[in-house]
Every structure is written in C-alpha cells, then in structure tokens.
C-alpha cells in the first residue's frame, strides 16, 4: 500500500488514546528495577573519584570479608577472561586517510581511570546494602594525573587521556568543497562571523539505567534485562564484539523503559559486567543506578565549540557557509559517539536554505569526562543551533527581518540536493513560516513589546527554521560512510485464528506510544478494532530482529516494515478469500475489514479468512501454506526530512537577568500524522528539552580537578512545570515521498528547533543594550553579566 492510500484509511489521523496508559497509571508497569528474579543478588560499582589517575594498587581483601559478599571483580579478572572492550559503531576516517584513534574502552579499568565515575570494580553481594557497604571497603590507591575537561585544554596537551592518542585528537573530518567555499567568501558582499558553544547536557531520563544479568545452566543461556532502547543491537554488540558468545545463547529483554533520549541506546560496561558475572556466580545479579551514578556515567550530549562564517550577497542571499567545530567525545568512544559531530551534524548545515557551498571541518577530542554520544537530536540540534544563530545575526547585521532573510533563502524546489550529501525529498518551508507567524500572532508583537516596555522589561522575538534528517538510511550508503551496523527495521504481523493480531517490532517504545500508534496502523489496514492488536517490542526472545529506537526512525522505518508485512498478509489473505468466494485472486478487493469480489455483492470478513488460514479445511493447500503470519525487513531508501519554523518570544528583567518565555509557537511538517495527540506530545517534550538547554541546563566539570560539579538534581537545573507557558502547536503536511506511510520523524524536532529560537529572542531583546552575543544557557547570571559587560 502506498502513502496516499494509507493516509485515507479510517482512523489514520485520529488521537486514539494510548493502550499502554492503563498499566502505567495503575502502577503495573514493569521497569527493570521492578523485576525481581529468584536467587537475585545485587551489584554495586566502585567508581573512580578522580578524573584521571593511575591505579597504583587495589586491595579488596577487607571488602571480600564483608557480610554477604559473593565476589568482587576487577580489571585483572576482565583481562583473564579475555572480555573485550566496548566497541564503537561508527568508523570515521580522518582527512589524511587515517582511521580515527580507537583506544580500548574496558568494562573495568585496566590500570588507569579516565573520568570521574569510570568503572574500577564490581562488588556482588546478597543484598544491595551489603554490596554498598563492601564497596566502601575496596581500597584503591591512585596516582592522580592532570586532567583535561574541555576541548581547549585537550588541544593544549595538559594531559594525555590515552597513550594511543597522545595529543588527545581522535580524528579530523571534513565535508564540502573548501576551494569553492573560499572563493565564494572572497567575492561576498558581506560576511557574518560567529563563535559559539553548544553546552554539554546530561540526558536524565527519569528512570535511571538498570540491568539484571541472569544465567541458566540448564541450557547455557544468558538473559539480560536492561533499560535499553535497542535490545537486538545490545545483544549483537555484547556477543559478537565484547564477550564472544553465540548470539542465540543470549536473550536481551528491555521491559518498560522510563525514557531514553539516546542515553539508553548504548552498550554500557555495567551491562556486560552483570552478564559475565551471572555465569561465574550462577546468580541473577541486579544493578540500578543511583541518580548520582547516572550523572557521572550515562553518556552525555552536545559539547561543541564552533566558529562559523556565512558569506552573503548584497541582497541577503547566502553564498557559502564555512564552519569549524571542536567536539568533545569524552574519555572513551561510546557506541555512536563518532557519528554525532560528523555524519549527523555537518550534513545538516545546509538547513532549509539554498546555500550553494558549505564546508565543515570537525576535530574530535578525548577529554577526562564521561563519554559523549547521541542525545535527543544528536548532531542535528548542534547544526541547527549554529545555522539559525548565524542566520539571525546576519539578518540583524544587514537590517533585514529574521523572517525576511529566511524567506529569501528557502529551498522551494524538490527534490533538492544539498552541498553536504543529503537529498531532501519534499517540504514546504515558506508555509511553515507563515503558519507559525499566524499561529504565534506575530502581527501583535509590536503591541506586546510596547506593553512589556511599559513595565520596564525587555521583549524579544526569535526565529528558528530547522530541518532534520530522521531514520538514518540506507544501510549501504551508511556503511560506505563508516557505519558498522545495518539501519533497517524488522516487523512481524501474526494474525491469530480468531482474527486478533500480535505485532512484533524491533522499534522499542519507551514513552513514544508505539503500542498505540503501531496498533493503529495495523487496525486501520485490516479493518479491525485497535483493541484487537497488541504490539510486542523489547525482547530478542520474541521479536525476530530489530535495530531499535533512535534518530526519530520508529514509524518511518519500523512502521514501514510492518506495512510491508501487512502487504504480504493482505496478498495471502486475498488468495484465501478468492478460494472461499470461488473468484480469481485479481478480482478480490479488501477494504474496511472485508474481502469482496469486484462487481458482485459477495463478501467475507477478515476474521473468516483468518480462521480459514488456521483451519484449512476449505483451502487451496496444493498452492498455499496454511497460517497467516508474515515478517518483513525494511531498509529505507533515504532519510525523512521533517522541518518547521519555531518562534519564541521572551520577556527579560534587565535588573535581574531573568528570562521568561512568554510565547512559543511550533509549526512542524511531519508528513502524514497517524496520531496527532502522540505527535504533539513528542513536540511538547522535545521543545522543553531544547528550551531547557537554552535556558537552564548545563553540565559543568571543574577545569582543574575534572570533578563533575553538576552531579545531582540539586546542581543541574532540570526544566520544571512552572518554567514554561503553554505552547502553540501547528502542522503543515507534505507526505514523505519514499516510505509507504508518508510519515517523517517527530521525536527530536522540538529539541532541535527550539534552542536557537529562544537564544535569538534573548539576543533580540538585549540588542538595545548593546549585547551582541551570549552562549547557552541564558541563565539569569549570564544574562545579567552580559548586560553589565555591554554597559561598561
């Protein structure tokens, strides 16, 4: 079935209430820490208190004697058992043709620790408190080394994080035609320049990471329960690359997962340690992170330092963009860390604009900080922030409106080949902007500004027209660009004899509502009630295969796989129906849950065909297998390209520097929308994560000691209910041209589009005071300082 037929099915576009809600609302959800296995022991990790140190000695004898202790595992045990380090899933090749530096990423420190929270030992005891008490008895003597926490110090050579990369440099990567870009700059009427920092963030899903390692001697099988977004990938990495186990002997279950935002994509040291120790001790072993452990050891996000230059002609048309970015990768290469500041970032720097030439150079650095990897948006927020900041700045320098400069440069012809590899299939950028202006009542802005000023406050308006690339694809091109994994998805549709359906999908749901949206897709296609469709995800023992949930890929890739499986179901069911109605296959039509014979009044319901498939008494057994159960793998031919315009209005108190978001309008083009309620919920959450980054969130390490200064909710400012107003949300629809649903990704848009909208609004408000620049977060202290510095 194609995208336009799909969009016209009944119940597509309806806000069906979520199937998963009842269990979450009654306390019946089963998150990893809620799972209690028989014979369960508890693990606690001894973590490095230092950012960078040699381990001189370690004495676990006292800890071993502590009550309840079953065993203590240290780096030497890992080495003895030949457990490999954690792999990186994306190989980046430097501009000089050399592969990136890929130092080992051990699951327990091998003589050296490289960030506060690095794993030193694992203590396993009968109870959690026994494990905690024993962990405190592990004596480690450290020889503390100087630490580097930001890219400036990493370059400076104050310390070498890895012997394999003594200058801390992981790779230099570039995209675009430098000579042509330089030539465009030489001829430009105007050049706008900007230095900016994309602040480091801690993802902070509300459920801390947790895992239970389990082993069965009966069949030599391992089971890992883990709060994870992609259990099949977790299993593949752990078996094939780290532990050398046969994949079919390992089952990974990601039960209810309390939010991920990227941080639960990765294979973490704890997951491997628990699986490994489960067999050694023949015990089920649980570990649940404290929030302070989560702050220290979850993969962080962002942390870019960039210099950007935009060349324009005298009419404000963009001629070329030149960017240099230093990316902080942290102490080790997390699973997809290397792709974030390259493939997922630089390729988005054409944005919504016809800029003919773009050149981007990226240097990636090791530091003594937690590994940095994909966090909601992953590279695309960094690209959008840079581009939308410099575009608004160029507008101000040229005396153009923020809307006007964008409109003069919008791409309007599709498909559009950008100078940085991507080919946009479809979009309508001018309409998104005019809709946003209407919805956000930009016409009334001057009046609101006057009212604000009469109170002695400042008001500013900020625009951001973002684009993102979702559902990274296709596998063969990604492979050529260094991906070490496939990027397809798998879906199985199992029609039961009585006509109800179970769908098995590789797309894990940890808040996105797949159990409802995917059921809606299947129910609409088969003409059966949504209640009759259950969606199973998150278990390698039940789902055939899967690449998981990240990069806003679930509906467009996972949903497309289910659509393909449904095509097979429909095709087979039509043959069964044809047999039952004694008609030719070609004359069978299927709509609203009924098979009919073209040009006659003969029809039979879907349920009858399902029953016949499993009770094949009157059935063409000579040419058709019984049963109605189909699996499909779908590898996309392109990314999907959601885009939109966000407009933010802020009020600032110049006496205190407090920024208040007064209005926020988001108009997005997500193509066909299956469940608007769920999609809008994704936008709300994404916008607050983006505004959180712009207004308050900031992960800070002490520059000298490398200590994490923002290690709890007391120190790291999380957005709360009273920080933001109610948002205005609108949609434009240009269906994606290359998947069978016409859908585009919607999970990350909010976090991608909103930070520059807010910062542009803040800078617009502060412009009369002479403030030209400000880095995120626009906290009261920073805004107040900026106002003071501009005055003096």
């Amino acid at each position, binding site marked *: 079935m194609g995208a336009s037929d799909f969009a016209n099915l009944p119940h597509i576009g309806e806000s069906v209430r979520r199937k998963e809600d009842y269990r979450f*609302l009654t*306390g019946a959800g089963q998150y990893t820490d809620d799972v209690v296995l028989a014979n369960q022991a508890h693990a606690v990790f001894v973590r490095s208190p230092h950012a960078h140190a040699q381990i001189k000695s370690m004495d676990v004898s006292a800890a071993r004697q502590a009550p309840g202790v079953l065993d203590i595992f240290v780096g030497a045990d890992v080495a003895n058992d030949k457990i490999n380090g954690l792999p990186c899933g994306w190989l980046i090749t430097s501009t000089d043709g050399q592969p990136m530096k890929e130092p080992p990423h051990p699951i327990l420190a091998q003589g050296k620790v490289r960030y506060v929270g690095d794993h030193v030992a694992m203590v396993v005891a009968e109870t959690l*408190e026994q494990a905690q008490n024993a962990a405190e008895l592990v004596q480690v003597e450290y020889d503390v080394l100087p630490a580097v926490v930001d890219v400036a110090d990493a370059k400076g050579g104050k310390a070498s994080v890895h012997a394999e990369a003594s200058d801390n440099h992981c790779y230099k990567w570039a995209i675009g035609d430098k000579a042509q870009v330089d030539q465009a700059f030489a001829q430009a009427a105007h050049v706008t320049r900007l230095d900016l920092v994309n602040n480091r963030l801690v993802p902070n899903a509300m*459920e801390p990471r947790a895992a239970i390692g389990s082993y069965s001697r009966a069949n030599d099988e391992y089971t890992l329960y883990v709060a994870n977004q992609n259990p099949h990938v977790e299993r593949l990495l752990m078996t094939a690359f780290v532990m050398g186990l046969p994949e079919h002997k390992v089952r990974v279950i990601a039960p209810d997962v309390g939010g991920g935002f990227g941080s639960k994509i990765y294979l973490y040291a704890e997951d491997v340690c628990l699986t490994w120790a489960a067999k050694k001790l023949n015990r089920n072993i649980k570990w649940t992170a404290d929030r302070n452990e989560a702050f220290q050891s979850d993969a962080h996000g962002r942390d870019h330092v960039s210099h950007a230059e935009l060349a324009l002609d005298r009419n404000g048309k963009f001629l070329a963009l030149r960017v240099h970015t230093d990316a902080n990768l942290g102490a080790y290469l997390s699973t997809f860390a290397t792709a974030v500041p390259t493939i997922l970032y630089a390729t988005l720097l054409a944005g919504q604009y016809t800029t003919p030439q773009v050149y981007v150079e990226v240097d990636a650095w090791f530091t003594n900080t937690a590994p940095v990897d994909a966090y909601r948006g992953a590279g695309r927020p960094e690209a959008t922030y840079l581009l939308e900041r410099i575009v608004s700045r160029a507008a101000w320098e040229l005396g153009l409106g923020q809307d006007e400069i964008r409109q003069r440069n919008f791409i309007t012809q599709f498909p559009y080949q950008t100078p940085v590899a991507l080919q946009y299939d479809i979009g309508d950028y001018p309409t998104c902007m005019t809709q946003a202006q209407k919805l956000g009542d930009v016409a009334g802005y001057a009046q609101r500004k006057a009212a604000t000023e009469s109170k002695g406050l400042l008001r500013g308006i900020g625009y951001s027209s973002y684009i993102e690339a979702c559902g990274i694809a296709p596998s063969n091109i990604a492979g050529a660009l260094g991906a070490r994994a496939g990027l397809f998805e798998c879906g199985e549709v199992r029609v039961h004899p009585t006509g109800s359906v179970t769908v098995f999908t590789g797309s894990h749901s*940890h808040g996105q509502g797949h159990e409802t949206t995917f059921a809606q897709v299947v129910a609409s296609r088969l003409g059966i009630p949504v209640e009759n469709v259950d969606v199973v995800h998150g278990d390698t023992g039940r789902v055939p295969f899967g690449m998981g949930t990240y990069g806003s890929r679930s509906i467009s890739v996972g949903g497309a796989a289910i659509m393909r499986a449904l095509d097979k179901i429909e095709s087979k069911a039509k043959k069964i129906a044809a047999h039952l109605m004694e008609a030719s296959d070609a004359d069978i039509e299927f709509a609203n849950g009924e098979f009919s014979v073209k040009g006659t009044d003969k029809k039979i319901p879907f349920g009858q065909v399902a029953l016949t498939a499993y009770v094949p008494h009157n059935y063409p057994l000579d040419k058709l297998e019984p049963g109605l159960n189909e699996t499909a793998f779908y590898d996309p031919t392109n990314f999907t390209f959601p885009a939109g315009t966000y407009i933010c209005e802020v009020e600032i108190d110049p006496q205190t520097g407090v920024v208040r978001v007064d209005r926020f309008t988001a108009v997005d083009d997500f193509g066909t929308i299956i469940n608007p309620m769920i999609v809008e919920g994704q936008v709300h959450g994404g916008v607050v994560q983006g505004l959180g980054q712009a207004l308050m969130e900031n992960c800070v390490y002490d520059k000298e000691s490398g200590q994490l200064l923002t290690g709890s909710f007391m120190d790291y400012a999380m957005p709360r*209910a009273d920080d933001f107003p109610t948002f205005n949300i609108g949609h434009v629809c240009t269906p994606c041209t290359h998947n069978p649903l016409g859908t585009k990704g919607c999970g990350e848009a909010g976090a991608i589009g909103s930070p520059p909208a807010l910062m542009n609004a803040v800078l617009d408000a502060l412009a009369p005071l002479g403030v030209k620049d400000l880095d995120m977060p626009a906290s009261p202290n920073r805004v107040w300082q900026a106002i003071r510095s501009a005055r003096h």
Partner: protein
Amino acid sequence: MIAVCKFGFFQGNHMNIQLKVNGKPVQLDVAPNTLLVQALRYNLNLTGTHVGCDTAQCGACTVMMNGRSVKSCNILAAQAEGADVTTIEGLADADGTLHPMQAAFKECHGLQCGFCTPGMVMSAVDLCQRHPKASEANIREQLEGNLCRCTGYQNIVKAVQQGAAAMKA
C-alpha cells in the same frame, strides 16, 4: 545485634511497624533506616512507586500519607507507624475503574514513558484536594516538586485541570 531483612543488612534491632496501605492493615518488619519507599517497593512489592533520584527532587516516589502527598524517599518507614498510606496501586476503584485524575491523565496524554506518572498523579490528587480551583499558574507552581522529562508538562497541566473538574463532579 545484626539482623537481616528482605531489603538490606542492618545494624540494630528491627522494628515492627503497623500501618494501613491501600486500605489494608499491614505489618512491616523493617530496620530503623528503611525508607518508606523501600518498604513499599521491596517489602510489599508495590513497585508502582518509583525512585528517580537520591536528593528528594524528582517526586517519582510521591504517595499519599494521611491524606497528604509525601515523597516516600524522604521519610522513614518507621515514621509511617499508624499512618494511612495510599500508593498508585490503591487509587483506582476495586473493579479497576480509574480515579478521575488517572482517567484525566489518560484522556489528556499526560504521560509518556510512565516513570514519573505515579508520583505525578499522587501530587495532582493532593493539589486538587487542597486547591480545587487552581489556575494553570497555580498548578504549574504546585507541580515544581515532580520532574517529568518526556511530556514538557503541557498535557500534565491539562490533565490536572480536567482531573480537578472531574473530582469536583
């Protein structure tokens, strides 16, 4: 004296606590340092009450104690002696019919991953009992003690408004 209980390993005498949980009398054998949330989750297997932080900031562990919401990570089980505690498991009717606030959260899509939800709902019920006519601004301010990373709070606020109206009806 050293005693072992289901959850931990403690120095000192265990305490026998009597309280009511979700309308039923309960006896708990806990150590003096056992938190109420630990007793609920590990002694009583009421795992709907969640732990999302270690600084009493996130509110995922919020339950009702004697008619007021409390963060159960911030109170000892011993302090609940004689108390009447309601957890998310005890909010719906015995036949499974959702409490008006639970129903409003579902209707308004006030939850995504569901982890903060039990605490959020308990706080919301308390809020509406204390302020049946709370404005949007009041609701936002009153929910400061409950963190949600998924919803951006917008639909939670909507759910609380709808739930408040339904609770009055």
